[in-house]
């Protein structure tokens, strides 16, 4: 796997070596004991997830977010969570309508509430829109993609705002960071990334190209997206863009946490997990759908989800 670091204009390219992590190098923990992430183990561990490890029909779950690994009920909706640092397991009522998971927060639009498992909920503003992608939140703001357009609301707020002239493609999650709101639009049958900077009123294209660009995710100053053959990571403060060339078309989302960007890509034999720090998780079979939190990784392998970490 080759990674390229480039400026926004794509001229400066720096090769960096990666390291390969294979099964013999992993300590496979099969017990159901606690996992103390506050004091990271000297060596990375890999373990199946107790009780919530079965991959769900929505393919979005199980998913690691804010330290919680969210699992699902039989219909694929989140109704249980496993706290990675403490090993605590909780169950809750599965959302019946539109939902989303961000920063450990489960957004349940029909019940008009958002909550971290085990904690008190906060209120969401009722909406009449037809939501067609999972909701996303960042701090106090929730963003969702509806048939009317991209809409935002403040948690515990009283109103919501529709971004005029936004035409988000269904299924693709929108994204939100310190600089703006991002989403995928389809024009002439091809996906491209659009955004609305917080400082501006009008949405505009963010990334377009010959290939379909999709699966945008963001945090802080960073925004990541992908084509069929590359993953892109742009720092909006510095204006630099890194491009990681790989066969990544199979991704259904990108994982981004504290600057670490992970994705699935075709390795030597099958799909593996790669990260932008050179990390490569290679095991027999496909490793898919990575989600991240502070160096911890949850991924899907067949019909089983596994927890790995910390990524070094």
């Amino acid at each position, binding site marked *: 796997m080759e990674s390229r670091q480039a400026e926004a204009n794509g001229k400066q390219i720096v090769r960096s070596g990666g390291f390969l992590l294979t099964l013999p190098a992993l300590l496979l923990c099969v017990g159901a004991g606690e996992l103390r992430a506050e004091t990271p183990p000297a060596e990375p561990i890999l373990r199946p997830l107790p009780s919530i490890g079965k*991959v769900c029909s929505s393919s979005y779950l199980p998913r690691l977010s804010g330290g919680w690994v969210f699992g699902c009920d039989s219909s694929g909706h989140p109704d249980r969570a496993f706290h990675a640092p403490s090993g605590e397991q909780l169950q809750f009522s599965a959302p019946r309508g539109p939902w989303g998971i961000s920063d450990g927060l489960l957004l349940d639009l029909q019940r008009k509430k958002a909550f971290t498992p085990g904690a008190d909920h906060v209120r969401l503003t009722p909406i009449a829109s037809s939501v067609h992608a999972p909701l996303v939140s960042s701090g106090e703001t929730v963003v969702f993609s509806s048939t009317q357009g991209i809409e935002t609301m403040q948690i515990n707020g009283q109103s919501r705002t529709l971004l005029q002239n936004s035409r988000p*493609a*269904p*299924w693709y999650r929108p994204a939100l960071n310190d600089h703006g709101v991002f989403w995928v639009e389809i024009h002439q049958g*091809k996906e491209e990334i659009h955004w609305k900077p917080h400082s501006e009123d009008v949405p505009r294209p963010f990334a377009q190209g010959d290939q379909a660009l999709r699966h945008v995710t963001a945090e802080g100053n960073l925004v990541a997206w992908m084509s*069929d053959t590359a993953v892109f990571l742009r720092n909006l403060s510095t204006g630099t863009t890194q491009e990681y060339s790989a066969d990544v078309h*199979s991704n259904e989302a990108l994982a981004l946490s504290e600057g670490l960007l992970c994705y699935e890509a075709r390795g030597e034999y099958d799909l593996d997990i790669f990260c932008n720090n050179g990390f490569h998780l290679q095991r027999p079979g496909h490793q898919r759908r990575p989600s991240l939190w502070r160096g911890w990784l949850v991924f899907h392998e067949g019909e089983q989800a596994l927890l790995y970490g910390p990524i070094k």
Partner: protein
Amino acid sequence: MKQHATRAAAGLTLLGAVLLMSSNHGPFSDPQAGLSALIAFGTVGFWSLACVGLGSTLLSSSRPIHQLAAGAGGYGLLLGVLCTLFGVSELLFLLAGGAGVWVGVRNRPRSIALPPTPILVILAVVLSIGLLDALAPPVDTDEIYQHLALPHQFLLEGHLLGGELHPDASRPLPMHLLYTALLGIGGASAAKLFHLLLSGLLLIALWEMAERRVGAGTGLPSILLLIGSYSFVREMGLAYNNLPVALWCLLALDSALDDRPKPMALFSGMALAAKYTAAPVLVGIYLAWLVRKRKLDAVGIVCWTGLALLWVLPWWARNALEGLHPLFPYAGWGLDNTPFMHVEKYGMGREPLDLLLLPWNISLHAEPDSFVFLGRVNPAGLLFLPAAAILGVRDHRALALTAGTAWVGWSLGPHWIRYLLPAAPILALLLVTGFPKLPRIARGALLFSLVLGLPQNWAPWLSDLSQRASAIGNPSAADELLKSEIRGFEAIDWVNQNSPEDARVALLFSWPKFYVDRPTVLGSVEDHVPTRAHLGLHNDSALKVLKDAEVTHLVVAGACSGCKNFLRKSYPFLSETDFDTLYRTPERTLLALLTQEATKVFESAKYSVWRLL
């Protein structure tokens, strides 16, 4: 003067009806919907007259119902030839239909001899309920997968389709071409209304034939046996082909019993071309004809069988010219281990005792929504059986021979009530043969038992209709209906809204083709033979073959963790190994190929859309 006044009044009434239908205060919440309904009715009128015109050419001395039915079958073949030669277009249909209308007007069609008023009232009530189905947006699986989907795709592509990627279009398509003509001008409701018209004519023909052949008073129970059965009424307002086949079979029998071999052969050919499940009925009809003639006419059999086969030979030749088995897609897939149907899947067993108990089981245990016959008939039919067997058969041996042959033929095939529909009117005729000889109180009891059988037969029909009826002429309710009733509609909607104009879509383990506004390939229901066969034939290159056929997008069902297109419990007669080979392996093959050669662009529940790389 009086004649002018009458005409003026009629014209004004018609104009008023049109204005009312298309106004904001009309019966539909959307004036456009009222106008669409009017166009659908007008299209059906146009094609009915065209059919009478062509039918009067084929059968000049026959009754109007015979002529209309013959014209419909005639157009089924004629349009097939014309569309093969000149492509599929609305203009072609207008010209072909216009010619029939011209002949029809010129020949001045005779009026149909209608049944007495009480019978008409019963028919009017039932057909009015069927009318709701005909005007509602199509959501029935077979309509949106095949009967309306093929016409929609023919019109979209401008030519007939066929072959491994369009297996359903490789069968004889007489009804589908009529539906194409109706759909092209009058929309889906026109096709459904035309089917409703044929269903009504079938009931009138059955009543008339029962009264004429079996005896006075037998018309009512014979039609009640049909309209009191869920499996019959549920299809009336849909664009299907079983009931037109039943009409052709009934008219073929009527002709056979009158020793009129030409119409017998014509109607037989039309029925066979519209559905191969008519074959045992037709064998019975030919046997009845021989019994009626009282001599073995070998030359006649060859001659009239040849005339009947003219209706299917062009379709068989078309398949052969395309390198397919003439009976494709029922045979010739090139995969030994992929049967077109598992006959064991339907009914309540196939042991000798099960076959003997079929009349009992089908009458009392059939379920509309399970493989236990997948339908329902009025249980009162069972009560007619002893009287027919003891009192009726000896006077109606030819009829009994036809019904018996049809029954045996159906018993040997899949025990799905739908496949019995081509024989249903003939079976009803046989069942009422003992009726006239019964004492009055027994006749009353039998009629009453038919009424008692209505609730469990009409309840599932009306239940389905109640959901559809609210969507008539109401676009937002129609949208909700499509989303709630059609599996994978969100994925189809994504394709229509977001895929490029020149996209070509393959439906894998999914079927709502009628609603895809792009050219499609494959598509399958239930056992998903086309999809499984494609994956089985091409294995690792299955998606490459699709890409070579200019497919750009895939609509896939079950490409998610734990999602399954096949329930193990539906195939208890298969070993684990066979089930895995036949059903799980194709799913696994597809999942592996999708990961390598496609990218998911949309997902909703079990359905996803993929773009081929």
